[in-house]
């Protein structure tokens, strides 16, 4: 074989070897930061499940969950004593989405096993959690890097989240609604 051909093969091999490494890195990258795609899939494929707040559908479904109907009819209820039943995202990439508070505990963070996945550089993997204690929802910050803000102040010890109080994590803000 000619010198030139050998040189091309030699350089080509190194190039292909490195391409393989970058292929793996790109797969890892999409695993780590590809959450956005997932969210789009979620909202596109399951629009009925992740519903936007106060859509007319919820009202017309006459036998639909009472709490839901109530929430939809009084979207800005100032009554702080009612029990919150859902979490509404008011700002951020997933603005408008709701998560029903049908469990004792809702975990929030970037990790895929969170109940509320927040895809945001300012959110930690396991950022915070909401815990229900006697009809109150408490927010607990799980030692997140950038903190959790309840009504503008950083959450230290677990604090009670009253309905309609904005909670901010990174670029996402949500409120609890009755």
């Amino acid at each position, binding site marked *: 074989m000619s010198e030139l051909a050998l040189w091309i093969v*030699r350089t080509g*091999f190194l190039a292909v*070897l490195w391409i393989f*490494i970058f292929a793996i890195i790109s797969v890892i990258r999409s695993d780590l930061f590809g959450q956005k795609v997932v*969210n789009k*899939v979620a909202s596109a494929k*399951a629009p009925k499940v992740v519903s936007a707040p106060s859509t007319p559908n*919820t009202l017309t479904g006459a036998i639909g969950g009472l709490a*839901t109907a109530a929430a939809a009819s009084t979207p800005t209820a100032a009554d702080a004593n009612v029990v919150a039943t859902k979490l509404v995202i008011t700002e951020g990439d997933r603005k408008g989405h709701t998560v029903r508070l*049908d469990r004792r505990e809702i975990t929030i963070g970037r990790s895929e096993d969170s109940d509320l996945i927040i895809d945001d550089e300012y959110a930690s993997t396991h950022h915070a959690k909401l815990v229900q204690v006697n009809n109150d929802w408490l927010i607990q910050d799980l030692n997140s890097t950038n903190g959790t803000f309840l009504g503008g102040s950083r959450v230290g010890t677990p604090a009670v989240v009253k309905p309609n109080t904005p909670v901010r994590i990174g670029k996402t803000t949500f409120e609890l609604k009755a």
Partner: protein
Amino acid sequence: MSNLTSSINIAKIVRVVPRLRNIEALLLIFVLALNAFELAQIQLSTIEKVTTDLFLYWTPLAAFAGGIHMILRKYAREADSMILPIAVALNGLGLSEIYRLDLAQIASGGTELFAMKQVVWTCLALAAAAAVIIYVPTHLFLRRYVYIAMITGIALLLLPMLPFIGKTINGARLWIGLFGFTFQPGELAKIALTVFFAGYLVTRRESLAIVGRKVLGVQLPRARELGPILVIWAASLLVLVVQRDLGTSLLYFGLFIVMIYVATGRAIYVAVGLTMFITGALVASRIMDYVRGRFDSWLNPFDPAHYDAVGGSYQLVQGIFGMAHGGIFGTGLGGGVPQLVPLAESDFIIASLGEELGMAGLFAIFALYLLLVYRGVRIAFNHSDDFSKLLAVGLSFVIALQTFIVVGGVTRVVPLTGLTTPLLAAGGSSLIANWVILGLLLRISDSAGSKNRELLAETPTSVVNA
């Protein structure tokens, strides 16, 4: 009609299952093409034509790797998608380089060939990994056998010291010989000991993490918690003295220290452990000729006295010359003279590859190891129970530490030891042990996925209201 619920999860099930295996298939095809490229390049530059011999070395790895992929599709669909392609890439690269050294042997009339043996061992190793994936239903069952694992590990370590079957090769008593085969049981011992360390530390981590007295601003662990470290330290020094192998001893002790650190999160254990090991090694280098020889070769390899000595720095220096010959982009596979280094196909495969692929290629190899270990640590991270976390970290670190000790030895970062480069070097015991480790990691990564699925099955995914 309304079904408001926490529903972000649904997309996860839909997305995860087939995607991982498809990515793996694509990467695997890429890797196998790369392997064919290597073999063809070697044939072109050494015998100037491509012969059908190429398939003798390519097909078995391709077939078995494809087989493992299919097994993962059936038995562990959510296993990590990158471990198999990366490991096959390393294994294939090692195989190619060994074949290349064989061709050099044949050209100079030698008869000591390794590549075909390596092909056979590769098949056995991949079969072992497949068996682990199929027959280990979940790695958690290993937790039941923690103390059996300890006894097995120690027994395997001591096996070479038995009369008749124990064998001393190149000064180290690490082999057993049975029916003409030689095997290094210590390679399998590292898996058993990792299982034991993980199980042991899970039960002890609470007390190990308790803070003792504060001395000079450093929180010391309680004295009684140092007991186990002392035992492992003594055991690894025993390996050093009796089996005369610095690498194995460093590997076991390093593994234990890393796992203690991961279990407790306290850097003081690393500091204490390293100090103890370095002290032990320094004392050994004063007392034992063989350790002192290794130290001298490491510090002054170019000194003629060490270079010419029997068991001196000749091999190390030849390796360094080889890598210098390769430069940044290497001589190309088949273009160098790596056969000049003694044991170029096993202990010094890194120097051989460094000569032929250059620094650019060597860094690519290190990047592959890094990614492999990263995936292992990532698997640990995905698990919520301590045993799985520790086991996955431990198994990944066995590979990481061993690579560091070997590469560090060849490049004169640490004294040269007799360990094999994981997956690359010729040697059956090491290949089988490393593929079993990879099989376990794949198994662990799959149960992280399955666990999520079970959790999802418990939580209602939709609330149906008519």
